[in-house]
Structure formats: structure tokens, C-alpha cells
């Protein structure tokens, strides 16, 4: 079962919105530059004040003047007119080379990507060979064969840049071929042609558009470069590159000559690249950037007045005590709460289960304790007392001291929570060196001891293994050994068995129990699986939509669930009953943060809803806590 960590990221929309204005202006300016370029290219003959080729040696190398706004070149030609006519060359160059590159590269790339086999092998080796020669050298070599000149140079560049389109198309096809929806299409019986055109090609279009913009920019730069060294556009024809060639020769006399064509190139390429960036962002397969909310935090309106009173009795040897914790995540137009009024405590040697489905806030609770909520997500209320010390009041430096030494965490997927670049032994030893000041040899010896302690045979040999060389169960044992290396008083385990096979899960649960008996740490065990909680926990707190709905000792909870959600979840477990369908269900879906009902958050999925459920429901009780106004009635009903 794969359950994603329930850090819902409404950060995405925020970013999109806040960037909209900036991006909008940039896009408009870039688009305006390109429209102007196209206009000048088409109407150059009418717009340009002079004939770009008309020489007037009397007026050579003049600076800007009323007659010649951008001055004149060595032959007295008007720079502005040449610049405007250069637009035409730029547009032709970009269009020619990019079209050739796309028409050549994309079909071949699609074909070899889908077919694979020997053709793929041969074509890719040729591409590799071409790519291993510097691009300009390839162009120079092709020009040696074809001869110099605008169109020939653009054919050369087209061939050169076709390799990037070829690789792009092939890469997308290879990736798409493995997509489940392409497999679905094959199961449906769609032909290769249809799969390629209908299912794969639409997904190639976005990166293709981005690549086109990149190529246009690169072509403009390459054309300028080739013309600059005299292999592209031939004099006296006016292109920005040839103008720079002229300028270079007269740098000492009139450096200004180099400025107009340079600015023209930069502006054009910049505009094309910026448009490409905006396109890429809006297509949005890019990496989502963590953000801080732009707008000042909006107060959480749904929480009326003060926090609810803590009903938590103080207990002896309490390791962790959380009171009225509230966590907010950024969302469009402010922040929304993901955890509200959460209070619980864990004693030494005790295991508390935090059970809930995706979006319940259970994973964020663990991260909030460690102070690792991530940018934008913040704990706004409440106290987190670890051994009597409020972690929320500590400075980042101080909490760094607490982490590892007093509290540690084991994550869901052991293969991603260990650093792939280092051996597993060195990752444990590193913690011991940094946190406990052990020297290299001591740390290594202790790491091997710990690896042995978590039940891994041949620990010395395994310590030298990299994470990818270990099975999931083995890697999770290593992660546990690392977490316990400084003997913390609290261990947070976030779905530590969810990514593992069920027989391995049993071994890891046994290991937790075993280690707890020896080290005596308190465990906060986060899971979505009630069966796992039944096995490992002493007490269980059931979370739903950011709040605790029920908390009880493990035997009491399973024998007599009081909250309708707990009961529903319990009955929905696959091995809860032996019957044929219809199986018991909870109707509807888990509401997303921000969409919670204002009263009881379970009310619109609940079969026992009454009018009073629309008001805020407090968590009530002493030994057992339930957030349901009908808990008493229902209990009676069930008993009768």
C-alpha cells in the first residue's frame, strides 16, 4: 500500500497566482518585442529611413545624429536602417533553421523511440558522435561542404539543432511508453500509430514548444556568431552579426557601432527565452518551488474564539506533551489550517498511535514536533513540550541540538530516506560524530554495533553497503539504527512499514517492540493502518481532517469504538469481516483542508448526523476522549 505523506501542497496555486503579475508583465514585454521584430522584418523597406546598402563615404563612422539616429558605419551606411533590415535576416534565419531542425529531428526521434532496437542504436550513436563535436565546428564543417551564405548556414544549423529535437522526441516517447495510460491504450487495442499520435504526441507538444523557443534563441546567437566570423550572411547584406563584424574592426574609432546590433540580439534572444520560461512554468512539469505566502496570513476564521481547554490529564514520566497545536499551510488567498487544537501526551516506554487517512494531518504532526514543517507551513498555536521544554520557543540552533539527541524520526520509505551517495554505516557514524563527538574509529565501531543490534547479520560488511544495495526491510532497519544512535527519549515513526511487504512489516514491528523494551523510548507511531496500530500501540489517537476525533487505550478502542468515523474505518478494514460484498463503506471522500464542514468535520459522511452536529464539537471525556455529541447515545445503542 502506498500512501503519500499527507502534506497537501496548496503551495502550487499560490505560486501560480503570486507570479501571475510579474510573469504577465514579462510576457507582455517579451511578446511586444517579438511583434515589433516581426513588424520590422515585414515592413523593413518602408520603415527604414535609408537604403541599408547606400554608401556615403563622406559620412563614414559618424555618431548618432538627427539625420542618422544610430550613426553610420565605416562605409557611411545608416546603422538604424541596417539594423531594421537585420530583423528580416534574423526572422528568416530563426524560421529556416528551427523548421529544418523540427522537421528532421521530431519524426526520426518519435520513430526510433517507439520502435527501439537496432535503428535506435545506430541513430543514437550517430547523434552522440555529432554532439561530441562542438556545435560551431559542425556548422563550420557543413558550411565547408555547402559554402557560406545565409541559407546554407541555416541548413547547417538546422541539421545541428535537429539532434536536440531528435533526443527530446525520443526521450519523451521512451518515458511515455512506460506510462500506465499508454499500457492501458495497448490493452484497449489501439494501433501503434494511434498510440503514437493520440496518446503520446499530445504530451510531447509542451516540451516541444519550449524546445522551439530555446532553439530560436540559440539559432539567433549562432547565426550572429557565424556571420561575425564571416561564414554566415555575406557582406554587404545587413545582418546583426555582420554589423558586429564591422564594429569589431573599428572598436578603437567608434565603439558605439557595436552597441545597436548587440542590444538587438540580446533583446530578441532574451524575449524568446523568457517566453520559453513562462511557457515551461505554465506547462508546469517543472519542480514545484516551496514558497512563503506572499499575502499576510489570513486569520483562520473557522476557529471561533480561544483554543479549546486541554482535557489532557498530566501523567507521571511524560516525555512529550502537545497542547492545542495548530498548523497552517499556505493556500490561495491566505492560509488554511491542516491541524487544529491537537493535544496529546506520550509517556516513557509508551507507544501512541496517530491513525488517520490522507489529509488528516498525522504526518505534519510529526514534522511539527521536529520543527521541520517546510517553508510556508507553520505552527501558529500551541505548545510542544519535550521533557518539559517547549520546542516552539527554541531558536533554530537550539532545536538542532534537540533533534537526534532527544527526538528522532523514521520515515515511510527507507530507500529514499537514506542518502544514496554514502554508505549506510557512514550515515550512522556521521550522526555519532556530529552529535556525540565520537572520533572516526569509535563512531564506526558503534555504527556496526547498532547495525548488529537491529538484527542485520554480518554488520561489518553491511555497513559498507550503499542504500540501493539493500532490500527495503534491511534499509528500514538501518534507518531505525540511525534514529536510535543517540538514544533519544522520543522516536517518531511515520508509516515506517507502509512501503514494505507484509511479512517484512511483521519483522519491523517486532523490532520496534524489542528496541523499546531495551531503550525505553516513547514512540509516536503514525500510520493509516488500524491493524498495524492494533499490533504496536498502547494507546491510539484517531485523526480526521486535522483534528483528533477519538483517543483510547488500544483494547478499548477496538472493542468499543465510540466515534462513528473510527467505527466506520474499523469495519472497512479488509479483514474486519468475512462477508461478501457489499462491504461496509464510509460514503464520500476525505475533505481537503479548506473544505472542512464548519461543525463536526465528519458530519457530511456520517449516518448519525443531527442538527446539533453543525456546531463545533468539543473533545470530551477523561480516560477516553471522543469528539462526538452522540457518542453516549450510540454507545448505548450498540450495546442494546
Amino acid at each position, binding site marked *: *500500500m502506498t500512501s503519500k505523506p499527507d502534506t497537501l501542497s496548496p503551495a502550487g496555486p499560490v505560486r501560480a497566482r503570486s507570479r501571475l503579475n510579474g510573469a504577465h508583465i514579462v510576457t507582455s514585454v517579451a511578446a511586444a518585442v517579438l511583434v515589433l521584430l516581426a513588424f520590422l522584418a515585414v515592413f523593413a523597406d518602408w520603415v527604414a529611413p535609408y537604403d541599408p546598402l547606400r554608401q556615403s563615404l563622406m559620412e563614414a563612422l559618424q555618431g548618432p545624429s538627427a539625420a542618422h539616429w544610430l550613426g553610420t558605419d565605416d562605409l557611411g551606411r545608416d546603422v538604424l536602417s541596417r539594423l531594421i533590415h537585420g530583423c528580416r535576416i534574423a526572422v528568416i534565419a530563426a524560421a529556416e533553421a528551427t523548421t529544418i531542425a523540427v522537421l528532421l529531428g521530431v519524426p526520426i526521434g518519435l520513430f526510433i523511440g517507439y520502435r527501439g532496437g537496432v535503428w535506435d*542504436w545506430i541513430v543514437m550513436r550517430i547523434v552522440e558522435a555529432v554532439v561530441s563535436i562542438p556545435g560551431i565546428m559542425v556548422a563550420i564543417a557543413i558550411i565547408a561542404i555547402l559554402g557560406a551564405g545565409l541559407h546554407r548556414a541555416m541548413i547547417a544549423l538546422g541539421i545541428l539543432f535537429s539532434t536536440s529535437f531528435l533526443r527530446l522526441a525520443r526521450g519523451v516517447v521512451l518515458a511515455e511508453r512506460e*506510462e*500506465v*495510460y499508454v*499500457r*492501458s491504450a*495497448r*490493452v*484497449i*487495442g*489501439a*494501433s501503434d500509430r*494511434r498510440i503514437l499520435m*493520440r*496518446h503520446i504526441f*499530445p*504530451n510531447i507538444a509542451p516540451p516541444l514548444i519550449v524546445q522551439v523557443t530555446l532553439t530560436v534563441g540559440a539559432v539567433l546567437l549562432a547565426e550572429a556568431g557565424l556571420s561575425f566570423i564571416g561564414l554566415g550572411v555575406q557582406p554587404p547584406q545587413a545582418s546583426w552579426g555582420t554589423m558586429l563584424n564591422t564594429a569589431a574592426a573599428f572598436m578603437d574609432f567608434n565603439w558605439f557601432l557595436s552597441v545597436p546590433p548587440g542590444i538587438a540580439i540580446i533583446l530578441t534572444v532574451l524575449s524568446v527565452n523568457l517566453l520559453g520560461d513562462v511557457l515551461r512554468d505554465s506547462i508546469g512539469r517543472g519542480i514545484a518551488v516551496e514558497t512563503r505566502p506572499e499575502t499576510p496570513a489570513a486569520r483562520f476564521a473557522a476557529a471561533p474564539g480561544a483554543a479549546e481547554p486541554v482535557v489532557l490529564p498530566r501523567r507521571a514520566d511524560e516525555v512529550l506533551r502537545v497542547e492545542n497545536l495548530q498548523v497552517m499551510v499556505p493556500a490561495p488567498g491566505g492560509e488554511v489550517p491542516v491541524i487544529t487544537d491537537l493535544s496529546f501526551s506520550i509517556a516513557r516506554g509508551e507507544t501512541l498511535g496517530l491513525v488517520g*487517512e490522507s489529509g488528516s494531518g498525522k504526518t505534519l504532526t510529526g514534522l511539527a514536533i521536529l520543527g521541520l514543517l517546510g517553508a510556508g507551513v507553520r505552527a501558529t498555536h500551541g505548545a510542544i513540550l519535550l521533557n518539559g521544554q517547549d520546542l516552539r520557543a527554541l531558536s533554530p540552533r537550539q532545536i538542532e541540538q534537540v533533534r537526534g539527541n532527544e527526538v528522532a524520526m523514521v520515515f515511510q520509505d527507507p530507500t529514499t530516506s537514506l542518502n544514496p551517495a554514502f554508505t549506510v554505516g557512514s550515515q550512522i557514524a556521521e550522526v555519532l560524530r556530529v552529535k556525540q563527538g565520537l572520533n572516526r574509529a569509535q563512531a564506526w565501531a558503534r555504527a556496526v554495533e547498532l547495525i548488529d543490534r537491529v538484527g542485520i*547479520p554480518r554488520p561489518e560488511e553491511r555497513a559498507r553497503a550503499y542504500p540501493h544495495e539493500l532490500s527495503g526491510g*534491511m534499509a528500514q532497519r538501518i534507518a531505525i539504527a540511525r534514529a536510535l544512535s543517540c538514544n533519544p527519549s522520543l522516536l517518531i515513526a511515520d508509516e515506517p512499514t507502509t512501503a514494505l*511487504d*507484509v*511479512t517484512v*512489516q*511483521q*519483522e519491523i514491528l*517486532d523490532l520496534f517492540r524489542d528496541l523499546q523494551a531495551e531503550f525505553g523510548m516513547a514512540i509516536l507511531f503514525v500510520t*493509516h*493502518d488500524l*491493524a*498495524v496500530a*492494533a*499490533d504496536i500501540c498502547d494507546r491510539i489517537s484517531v485523526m480526521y481532517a486535522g483534528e483528533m476525533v477519538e483517543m483510547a487505550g*488500544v*483494547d478499548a478502542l*477496538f*472493542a468499543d469504538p465510540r466515534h462513528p468515523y473510527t*467505527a*466506520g*474505518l*474499523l*469495519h*472497512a*478494514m*479488509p*479483514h*474486519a*469481516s*468475512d*462477508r*461478501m*460484498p457489499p462491504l*461496509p*463503506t*464510509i460514503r464520500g*471522500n476525505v475533505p481537503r483542508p479548506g473544505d472542512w464542514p464548519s461543525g463536526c468535520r465528519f458530519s457530511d459522511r456520517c*449516518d448519525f448526523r443531527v442538527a446539533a452536529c453543525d456546531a463545533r464539537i468539543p473533545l470530551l471525556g477523561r480516560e477516553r476522549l471522543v469528539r462526538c455529541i452522540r457518542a453516549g447515545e450510540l454507545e448505548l*445503542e*450498540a450495546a442494546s
Partner: protein
Amino acid sequence: MTDKPLIEITDLEVTYWGRSLMGIGGKPFHAVRGANLSIRAGETLGLVGESGSGKSSIANAVLGLVTASGGSIRFGDAELTAMRTRYPPAIRSQIQAVFQDPYSSLNPSMTVEAIVTEPLHVHTSMDRAARRARAIELLKLVSLSEEHLDRHPHQFSGGQRQRIAIAAALALQPKLIVLDEPVSALDVSTQNQIINLLYERRAEFGIAYLMIAHDLALVHHISDRIAVMYLGHIVEEGPSDRVYHAPAHPYTRALLDAVPLLDPAAQRRRRAARKFAPAPDAPRLSATGCPYQNRCPHVMPRCRAEMPPAFAIAGGGTAACFLHAPDAGPAPETARLSGQPACKEPAAP
């Protein structure tokens, strides 16, 4: 139901070849090693195993997504392995699939209408209006409605996406649907909605299911027969209730016992009774003999020497384990370590 199976898998082998440097050579990985299974029309077979057991490879071989390296898959009168991955439309339209991850199994660039009508487009000559009408019918079958037609997959929750995938699979009224872990990516509270939906449609249309899952309890609800796989071998097969309540193969029992009971007291008792724990790095596979020998509490010298054949089990089905050889003594404790969880039925509203 007739006695002639809808699909019959005999001695199926699936082998993947690792790519080496020049694309030649490489080591073979035997994902399926001689599997025998059959499904009758309208019947559900649950295929259970842990990761790497080969259960998905069997699904892919049936769907023609991989080519079998040996054995046969007969579907009606057709031999599927002979067609490699190119099934004729008449067969394609009768075998459909629903995959595990509802977030990647729907093409993000297509609308719900396009996804659901794609099979109709490929296999029928219906016009656009007729296809749309059929799409609405199909969405109703999975408790979605016309208003969802023009939306894109990312606008739906996991459970709803899985409903869309089921609607597409039902479009051609297939005889067999391969369900590859159809609910394991969903929240517990929505899992049963999908299970119930699948069960209702099966009753309505008489479809046979091949349901792949890692959770025996889950498939038990919906399956007529269950087969258990371990490292490419089918170690046990039989009627659903018999396999679930009286597992014959030690691995099946280990699989059942590994899932904690929902009764903490009973679970504590079961834990205390658990004696044998295999070494965590016990080699997964030995060259000869039973695939489970390194982790089996009942391993005998014989298990290391030869591969156990499938022995008949009282109550139906077979188990590939020498404990059940006719010449062996009484099998030790084939029942599960403790009974069913004591869990009350939901209180009536």
C-alpha cells in the same frame, strides 16, 4: 458457468533479460516459473503475492504487454502466447484492465469522455454522438455523471479516477478484466466503495476478473478462487474460503499471520505463539528445491533437494508443499493460529 475455462494458463514462464553493454547478453530474470491457472466465465480469481512474486507479470502476459517465454495461455479457442503482444481486435476487446495507480493510469491530456470512449473509437464504428451517449451510460454505471465528461483526470480524487478507469474497462463489455491492485493506492474508507462497485458490475454483466493484490483478506471478499504466488511460483491455489480459512502452504499461512488482527488481545496471543523467525537476510531463492525453503519453519531435507509438485488439498485446490504429499504424515496445524477477528458489525443507523 460451464466447465470449460474462459482462460487457461499452463506452465507459463515469463523471463526478463537485463540489458548489458551492447544490448547483447545480460542476465535473465525469471519472473514467472511455470504457473498454472484457469478462470471460468464470470468467475473471479484472486492472485496474491508480495512484491517480486511475479503476480503482475502474469497479468501483463495475459494482457499481451509482455511475451511469455514458455507455456501457454488459452483464451477460448485462441492461443494468446502465439500472438506475442499483437492480439487481434476480437480478442483485445474481450480482455480489458484496470491498473493500480489512478494518478498515472489516465492520460493527463485527455478528457474523461476521450478516455472512456477510446475503446469504442478503436473497436466500433459508432459516431461521435453515439459514443458520447454510451460514455454517459458508462459513467452512470460507476456512479459518475454526464457533468464529468468534459473534465480532465487531475480534477478527480483517487477513488473517482479509479471509477473512470473501470468505466473505460467496461466500455466493450469484455469477458475478462484484469485488475492489477485496483484499490491499493486508495484510502481505506474509499477502498470498499470500489470493491463493491466491481462486485456489482460483475454480477450484472457476468465478467470474469483476474484480481491481483498483495492482501489476501481483500481478495477473499470478492474472489471465488485464490492463488498465492511466491518468487515466480504458484505455491497454493484453491477455493477462496478454503485458502483463507485453512491455508495449506506454510507461506500462505505466514502471509495471513503477518497481517495483525484487529483484536489487540488476540494479536498479543498470536504474537506470543509465534516461534519461528527467519533470518532477515535469508537468501530469497535457492538453486534447487522449494522456493520457500529458506524461510519455512517446516523445511525438510526433501524440500532442499526437489521442487514440490502441486498436491491436492482436502477442501479443494492444490498446494506445492511436501507436507501434503500423500506419503507424508498428517500436516501440522494447517489452520490459522487464531480465529477471525472479533469485530462487531456496524451499528445500524
